[in-house]
């Protein structure tokens, strides 16, 4: 059951001219959160902008004793709402409704988990990595961005025992080009007998490419899709994704309650806005 809190902003850490991380005091939300879930954020009071915005829960914040105290959000400034969140001051308050959505299913050892992130698509993977670590599942992070400055929090993943594989479009860190190239190489190097699941989040063309690679290597891939969302609770039918189920006609599924995590083979990628 989601709850709504007026969460105090503990800190706003600018990572670059576009990216920031906002820490929110929201212990009730943190306590309920499962890997890959999201919250609906109202970055300002008032009616313009009017609607909330969906954000993956980035980190679960904890006190020294390990009790959840809040959550953080990884934000990329794109429009009015994300711009307000980029500028939100410490001590300010934002509306935080959640946790919401179908979570990731962390795969169990001896299977391996490979997380594939593009840019701000890194956001749902900290909580997934924690859940995988708790299960002792060997985990890799394939992480691509435009430039080195946009590759953030790699050390956090390393501290959780996650092996990072990096790529930047300009070659300033890791492999030059898209992250799908090193992913393809790595997939080809794993024997078929070794169980493996992919988890992907990032720009739609990236997720589509990852889904196609996964299919060609015979691996399951779960994707976390970001759609324009009105309510986050299944009320408005705006965040739909066209999906297929064998034997039935394509069907629009609400990504807020039917997702945001989907088995990639269900997605009709040509119909997805990006």
């Amino acid at each position: 059951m989601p709850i709504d809190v007026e969460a105090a902003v503990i800190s706003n850490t600018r990572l670059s001219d576009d990216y920031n991380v906002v820490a929110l005091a929201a212990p009730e939300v943190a306590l309920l959160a499962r890997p890959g879930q999201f919250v609906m954020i109202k970055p300002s009071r008032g009616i313009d902008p009017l609607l909330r915005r969906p954000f993956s829960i980035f980190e679960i914040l904890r006190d020294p004793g390990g009790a959840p105290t809040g959550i953080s959000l990884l934000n990329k400034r794109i429009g009015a709402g994300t711009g307000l969140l980029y500028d939100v001051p410490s001590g300010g308050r934002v509306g935080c409704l959640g946790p919401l959505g179908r979570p990731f299913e962390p795969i169990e050892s001896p299977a391996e988990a490979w997380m594939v992130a593009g840019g701000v698509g890194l956001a749902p993977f900290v909580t997934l990595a924690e859940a995988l670590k708790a299960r002792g599942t060997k985990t890799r992070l394939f992480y691509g961005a435009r430039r080195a400055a946009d590759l953030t929090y790699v050390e956090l993943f390393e501290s959780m025992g996650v092996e990072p594989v990096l790529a930047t479009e300009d070659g300033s860190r890791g492999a030059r080009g898209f992250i799908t190239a090193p992913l393809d190489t790595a997939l080809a190097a794993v024997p078929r007998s070794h169980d493996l699941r992919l988890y992907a989040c990032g720009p739609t063309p990236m997720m589509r490419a990852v889904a196609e690679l996964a299919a060609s290597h015979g691996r399951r891939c779960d994707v976390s899709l970001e759609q324009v969302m009105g309510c986050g609770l299944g009320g408005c039918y705006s965040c739909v994704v066209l999906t297929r189920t064998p034997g039935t006609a394509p069907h629009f599924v609400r990504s807020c309650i039917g997702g945001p995590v989907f088995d990639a083979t269900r997605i009709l990628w040509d119909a997805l806005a990006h």
Partner: protein
Amino acid sequence: MDLSVAIGSLTLANPLIAASGCFGYGVEYADVVDLSLLGGVAVKGLFLNEREGHPPPRIVETPAGMLNAIGLQGIGVHRFVREKLPELRDRRAVVIVNICGTTIDEYCEIARILSDHAGVAAIELNISCPNIKEGGITFGCSLTGTHDVVSAVRKVTPLPLIPKLTPNVTDVASFARAAEEAGADAVSLVNTFLAMAIDVHTRRPKLSNIVGGLSGPAIRPIAVRMVYECRQAVKLPILGMGGIATADDVLEFMIAGATAVQIGTANFVDPFLWKKLLDGIRAYMTRHEITRLTELTGTLDTAKRETAWISS
């Protein structure tokens, strides 16, 4: 303190109704709201059969509002009575079923099916969706069309019948009058205002359907005016809506002439708003020594003008 209101033969515990299209089938919200505390729940518009609706993008935000062109995606009346109605009944929701048709026969068929099932409190006739080409608004934009569909459905159901009117006409009041003459028990107004938004860089429409319906606080003053006009024209109870987000907004619509109100877009922003609205209404009743809320309806004092704004 009595917050109850009467819509024809139907008595609601309070005047707050979740607006159709903004509350799924109600069951989606059962985790966050006690559905039995709402005056009513108007469920998402149902055709006879399932529909997929428009491709995304289906909504876009605009100043103090939003456009939507969902295209009435829905599960159809048969699946509704099988899959959703039992839970709504168990949760003691007062269910107002919004129905859509491409023909008068389709409206009648859906109304007949609903009349055979326990747990349906009223039927709201959607003759005003701006986002679909066929049916619906073709009835709602013609006085004879409105009259014909209301009187046809009137003949097949004993349930309270509430046509939902479009604001996209020159004179909404004449449509309220047509509905009244055809035997409606109440009217809902207004549906969304036909509108559009364009990305100037790509020169593309921001909605896949090109045009959509504007809702939210941006439309509220126009909707209040339309409720006021309809109040002069008909004796029917009016279910007023358009941008309601606070208790004051509810009261404004009631003073303009609404017996009950519907809340849509604001529920997206704050799904917990119902209790806040009820608390605000009760505080107002205490302050103004009102014991029966329904006495507020249509009490606009036009003899004097409010002048406080001059100094504010």
